[in-house]
């Protein structure tokens, strides 16, 4: 029986939410295609995570328990995935469609003659068990279906929150240690330090089920403290428009939009954001959209499920109070 591989994206020894979402989706797809799901864990900590990966459908776990995986840029992970593909004979791999992992997929595709589809929001089993991928392009204006050419290894970059997490209740997977020999090229680009400056308690906007975002209407950097307070009441991540990141009010990695990040949370709340086309390109796939803006004509109201026309400095503090009361 063939194997479908899922590359587990992890942080501090824990699989990220998107990894469990991918495993849950792969479990259904693999069953339909007559395959089984194998997780791939690169770097230390794979064995410790085996149980949770099994609960979400992994029948097998390929792991490479080495600090080298992230000590050099991209290539060790490519070497290890090449080993995982050859050990499993798989022709399909799901990976988290985030920036650094896309690099790994791009290089892997060149090496193994594969095709890559990034930012996938849905997958279905097509003829011959090959997967077909749904992807939104032009900032969500068009919904497309694509597939990787027959005979090529298919690499699918899965967007966060595209699939629900569903535990299948499986037992711990069979674990297979990957035999990885690093190529000389793999150690050419060194990672000399890792700077983590994000909040440990606040979810990243890529993963968060709720994202609150602030724009030029905040007027200053302190406005983001208000947005963070709001975020922390509802467990949201905090994002920003380009006007706000350009002004230096919030770091660029939280910029949502065409030249920033794409978020697809279940709820997006924008305050002091006009909803320019380039901003919408990064958030209009959110399931529910809330807008707070003092200008009733702001384009964001056209895509809002709930809009408040008013001063955010009046509405947001009140909203924080109201939400706190409802939480009890």
């Amino acid at each position, binding site marked *: 029986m063939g194997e479908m591989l899922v590359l587990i994206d992890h*942080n501090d020894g824990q699989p990220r939410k998107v990894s469990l979402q991918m495993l849950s989706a792969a479990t259904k797809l693999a069953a339909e295609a007559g395959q089984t799901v194998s997780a791939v864990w690169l770097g230390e900590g794979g064995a410790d995570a085996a149980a949770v990966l099994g609960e979400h459908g992994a029948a097998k776990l390929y792991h490479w328990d080495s600090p080298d995986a992230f000590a050099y*840029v991209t*290539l060790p992970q490519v070497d290890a995935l090449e080993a995982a593909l050859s050990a499993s004979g798989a022709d399909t791999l799901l990976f988290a469609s*985030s*920036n*650094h992992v*896309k*690099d790994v997929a*791009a*290089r892997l*595709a*060149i*090496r193994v003659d594969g*095709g*890559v589809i990034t*930012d996938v929001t849905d997958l279905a089993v097509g003829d011959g068990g090959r997967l077909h991928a749904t992807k*939104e*392009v032009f900032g969500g*204006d*068009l*919904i*497309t*279906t*694509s597939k*990787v*050419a027959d005979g*090529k290894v298919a690499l699918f970059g899965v967007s966060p929150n595209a699939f629900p997490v569903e535990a299948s209740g499986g037992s711990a997977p069979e674990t297979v240690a990957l035999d990885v020999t690093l190529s000389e090229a793999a150690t*050419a*680009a060194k*990672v*000399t*330090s*890792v*700077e983590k*400056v*994000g909040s440990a308690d606040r979810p990243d906007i*890529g993963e968060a089920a709720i994202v609150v975002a602030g724009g030029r209407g905040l007027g200053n950097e302190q406005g983001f403290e208000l947005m963070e307070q709001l975020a922390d009441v509802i467990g949201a991540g905090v994002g920003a428009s380009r006007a706000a990141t350009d002004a230096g009010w919030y770091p*660029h*990695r939280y910029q949502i939009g*065409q*030249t920033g990040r794409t978020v697809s949370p279940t709820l997006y709340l924008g305050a002091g954001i006009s909803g320019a*086309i380039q901003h919408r390109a990064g958030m*209009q796939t959110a399931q529910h*959209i809330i807008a*707070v803006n003092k200008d009733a004509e702001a384009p964001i*109201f056209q895509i*809002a*499920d*709930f*809009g*408040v*026309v*008013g001063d955010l400095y*009046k509405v*947001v503090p*009140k*909203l924080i*109070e*109201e*939400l706190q009361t409802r939480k009890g």
Partner: protein
Amino acid sequence: MKVIVPVKRVPDTAGEKKLDPNDRTVDRDGVESVLCPVNEFSIEEAVRLKEKHGAEVTVLLIGPDSAQPIVRKALSYGLDAAVQVTDDAISGSDALGTARVIAKALESMEWDLVVFGNQSADARTCLVPAAVGELLGVPSLTFARYLEVNGDEVVVHREHEEGWDVVSAQLPALVSVVEAINEPRYPSFKGIMAAKSKPLTVKSLADIGVDDGAVGLGAASATMYEFEPRPPKSAGTIVDDDGSGAAAAQLADWMAEKKFV
């Protein structure tokens, strides 16, 4: 030091984008084409390398004749020369196909550092720089929010969700930059005038040693076979606040009803 900046032509980000229903490639007739805005940042970084290290900077664009104004636009920032690879067979290439053409073009040029944008504003795959790195067997230090060249070493801060990694490699190397890296300046009048006479070499696939069959729509490793517009959204509830913030209560009710609290 020799630096190459690959740049892309894209439909204006503010315009409505369409796909050609026949070949499902971007329909460029209806909207104005521009230099990919992300490349304004890679060009600015190259200009800084010129100022700091006396780098000689060449623009590289893969695209048809009609993209030539975009090459001139890139030159107007004060860059030295340009190479454009133009060939009917390239039409419909996917990211990996484009990467193959860029890699072969780079093999036919002299360089120490290549500065990409982290993504193109239309395709947004982010795949091209790393794929080119793999094809050429050189490091790709992507998503740079900071870039520094010291002798024959390049140091980059690679942005990620939680912050950044400090990484380094020996030249030759590829980097891609994110918007946070700098604040692009506008081309000067002098630069715009000078761009008209900067050397531009147009090459065909044969010139750079690429087989026609290796690229284009037919060779694409991933193909789109269906597309449909996003279904329109039904109108939402819009409430006017009376100036006191009281409307927040209605919003909180709505959020509670949808189980967000």
